[in-house]
């Protein structure tokens, strides 16, 4: 079996900006990096189905998620991907528990592979469940956002700069949790970051994007060395 997880060849135009990307993601933890405005978020919004590309094709495990030729666009709720946002995007009108249960309840029982109890234990959030999300710290918010996303037993987890708004201590603790997620559940991840160094200890593969185009694909180690040299 090939290691190819996600492959795409898409274009998306936003006013003067043009995203024109072609790549294959392999199974594992991949870091997607590039400078601000390079198109990282646009790319993952296209891959997750939040935004429809103008042209091209996206395949996941051989299944077509988007094809301009076939006029096919699988909506985000049917892709089976998790998506953790930079600012957590926790629902402010729900408690922590209701946030976590939201996606779990929407997941068909036969597809639920991760128990809520194991997530609560893994992220050590049992004391937060009844709390209003507005009372959580940045680190706690990201732990809840991760648990909420994983509660849907996603086949692939997208993380859009999940540590950028956190202090160093919280960053380190979230990285430990991500390591455990990979170890315990084996869910592949695409981690968007400004800098590879942030996740160099964790990532196996790397994609570097600049001005809407992918300029490097390879191992995270190679990308890290390249970043260090520039």
């Amino acid at each position: 079996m090939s290691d190819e997880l996600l492959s795409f060849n898409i274009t998306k135009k936003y006013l003067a900006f043009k995203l024109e990307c072609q790549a294959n993601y392999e199974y594992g933890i991949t870091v997607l990096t590039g400078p601000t405005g390079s198109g990282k978020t646009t790319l993952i919004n296209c891959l997750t189905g939040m935004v429809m590309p103008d042209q091209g094709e996206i395949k996941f495990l051989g299944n077509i998620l988007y094809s301009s030729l076939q006029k096919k666009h699988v909506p985000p709720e049917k892709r089976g991907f998790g998506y953790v946002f930079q600012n957590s995007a926790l629902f402010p009108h729900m408690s922590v528990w209701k946030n976590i249960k939201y996606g779990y309840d929407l997941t068909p029982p036969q597809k639920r592979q991760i128990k809520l109890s194991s997530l609560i234990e893994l992220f050590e959030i049992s004391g937060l469940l009844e709390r209003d999300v507005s009372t959580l710290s940045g680190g706690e918010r990201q732990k809840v956002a991760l648990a909420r996303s994983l509660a849907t037993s996603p086949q692939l987890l997208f993380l859009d700069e999940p540590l950028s708004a956190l202090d160093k201590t919280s960053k380190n603790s979230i990285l430990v949790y991500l390591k455990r997620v990979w170890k315990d559940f084996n869910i592949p991840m695409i981690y968007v970051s400004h800098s590879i160094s942030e996740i160099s200890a964790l990532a196996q593969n790397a994609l570097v994007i600049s001005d809407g185009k992918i300029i490097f694909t390879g191992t995270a180690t190679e990308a890290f060395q390249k970043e260090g040299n520039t």
Partner: protein
Amino acid sequence: MHLSILLLTLRVALIATLINVPIAIAISWLLVKKKVRFGIILDTLVSLPLALPPVAIGFLLLLAFGREGPLGKIINLIVGVDIVFTWIAAVLASAVVSFPLVTRSIMVAMGNVDEQLEMSARSLGAGTWKVLLTITIPLAYRGILAGMLLGFVRALSEFGATITFAGNIVGKTQTLPLAIYHSVQLRDDSTALQLIIICIVIATITLVIHNRLLGKMKR
């Protein structure tokens, strides 16, 4: 006498508001969240009653729902009634005139709901309807309520479209504004003033609640 006028006015305004809210939510969602093609045309149509003289709206409703009007004929065929010069006509007139205010408020409220929360809900498996019902509407509810109150208070004070389309029939279509007009015509200043005071009291209470809701929305 004043009580029956008040009750009719409240009934007309309340039903007009209840008719408007689901339509206004649907149109706001199309314009703000779905960003439909030709949205500018829909947006203009929504605001049109705000820019037209109410008497013109009443006349257009009369043409559409009159015995010979296209909609009037259909209603007559299905239900066997003529709605012109009935309290239902007063409801329709009030609904059309107050519709832009309800929709505008809901559009603002929906526009203030963070798009990432809706995207997040979709990534968790929620379809379009589920997102609307569990994220967008609950987070925009204060604005929706504020829009309802604004529409209600506008429907309470509706005059031009109502008198043209529903007439000024005592006990049947005579709402508070029409009763005030009637009293002024008869030079019955005392009754006119009493009715005006009732209007002021209801409008003040409604607007105070509306402003409190808006204040909470901004916080």
